């Protein structure tokens, strides 16, 4: 019950800020909530809108798959070899710090316009946090757990499955959650520059032709999707962390 009230309060607060901004900046910068909802309903009835949604989802799914699988694999490999991990971690951290948008000319020159550039953009944004979280999770496994495994004379496979995996799973899930969000951001940015389709394209096109209503509405849809998906993963994340603490 309190949760419901919390949620309603937050939504009310956001609407209030939105209305305040609208009152201050006016139609040149943002549309009012009600007009945005109405236009969203209108968009949902358009075939072409769903084509764009499909394009984004296809690129996002592919990028997420690559980020998750390759990220966890790299993270595990680097985490288990301490030396390699320590060599790689600051390099990865530095890569994470680079404003990747500036690399977009290079990405375009390598991948050309279209799906592969979008996916590549999503992957370069999403993969590094997944690697870093996995690496940190493996590195920070309490030594006592591994010592216990040794005392119990568990083999490497048994250790990995019954000690290591449960110990690192919660952090990896957190990493995947962060990776999810950043991959989505990367794909959207990719679409803004390197594509003629997708939600990111609708946003940037809205900015360019000054279709404020389109920009605001699509932004809202993206945010609602991201927050909803993330809420789901957060619940999963919490559960994993809770069970691991028992």
């Amino acid at each position, binding site marked *: 019950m309190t949760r419901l009230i919390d949620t309603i309060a937050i939504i009310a607060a956001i609407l209030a800020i939105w209305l305040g901004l609208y009152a201050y900046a006016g139609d040149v910068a943002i549309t009012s909530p009600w007009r945005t909802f109405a236009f969203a309903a209108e968009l949902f009835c358009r075939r072409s809108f769903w084509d764009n949604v499909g394009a984004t989802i296809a690129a996002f799914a592919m990028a997420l798959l690559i980020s998750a699988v390759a990220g966890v694999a790299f993270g595990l490999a680097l985490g288990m070899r301490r030396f390699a991990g*320590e060599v790689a971690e600051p390099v990865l951290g530095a890569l994470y710090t680079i404003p990747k948008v500036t690399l977009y000319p290079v990405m375009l020159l390598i991948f050309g316009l279209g799906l592969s550039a979008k996916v590549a953009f999503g992957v370069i944004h999403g993969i590094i946090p997944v690697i870093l979280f996995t690496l940190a999770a493996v590195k920070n496994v309490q030594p006592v757990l591994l010592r216990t495994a040794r005392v119990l004379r568990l083999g490497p496979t048994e250790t990995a499955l019954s000690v290591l995996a449960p110990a690192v799973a919660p952090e990896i899930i957190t990493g995947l959650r962060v990776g999810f969000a950043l991959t989505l951001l990367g794909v959207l940015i990719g679409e803004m520059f390197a594509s003629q389709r997708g939600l990111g394209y609708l946003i940037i096109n809205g900015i360019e032709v000054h279709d404020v209503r389109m920009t605001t509405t699509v932004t809202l849809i993206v945010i609602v999707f991201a927050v909803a998906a993330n809420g789901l993963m957060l619940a999963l994340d919490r559960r994993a962390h809770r069970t691991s603490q028992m």
Partner: protein
Amino acid sequence: MTRSRRIVWTRIALVAGAVGGIELMCRLEVIKPLTMIAPSQMALELGRMIATGEIIAPAAYTFMEVGAAFVVSIVAGGALGALVHALPRLRRAVDPLLASWYAVPFFVFYPLLIALFGLNALPLIAIGVIFAAPAMMLSTLAGLDLVPRVLRKVARAHRLSRLQEARLITFPSAAPYLFTGLKLAFAYSLIGIIAGEFILSSGGLGYGISYAYESFENRTMYALMLFVLLIATGVNGLLHTWDGRLARRRGIT
């Protein structure tokens, strides 16, 4: 050679090898000069731009923005983190929002921010803060969450006042996480501001790159990219070293 030396040298060798590989591929024209110029040429061009001073104005502009956004993010993010930590009810409500923060492409709000702040550096600083403050906030929350319960009990056993507890127990215990927040806040301010400049600005390094790209000045573009890369890596490396030193002093290497 000690272990840490070996790690550093391996790292240097790795990076040098990667740069050397790119250099070779560019020189052999496996990578066409239209796609990418050789790293040595980038460095030469960057050196020329520094010598003539043409890089100073955009760099100073960007640094000013990043510095302002960084400071605001640290203060606001840390304070908000502590506040939200103290109010579990508020926290439950804002958590999903905070956690999906980075999925939102904030620079679409740039036209709105210009309408709010005017056409100057403020909208970009605002974007930097929007990017960086939540990272600091999340790190603060993580640090406060992970203060071991036994330390809290020690504080209670010694009848410390709330202020004493915060100064003597909570802050030192959370410090490594706060430092991570600092690192992230720098990274995110830089990312947010350069991205903002790149897309929708009229000054700074990001704008320089985008302008050079659009006018096919590959040399300028890559020199500026190299500069941003060096700054990001340099500051990050500095913070990383400092971080390691802090961790060693606390005996958690």
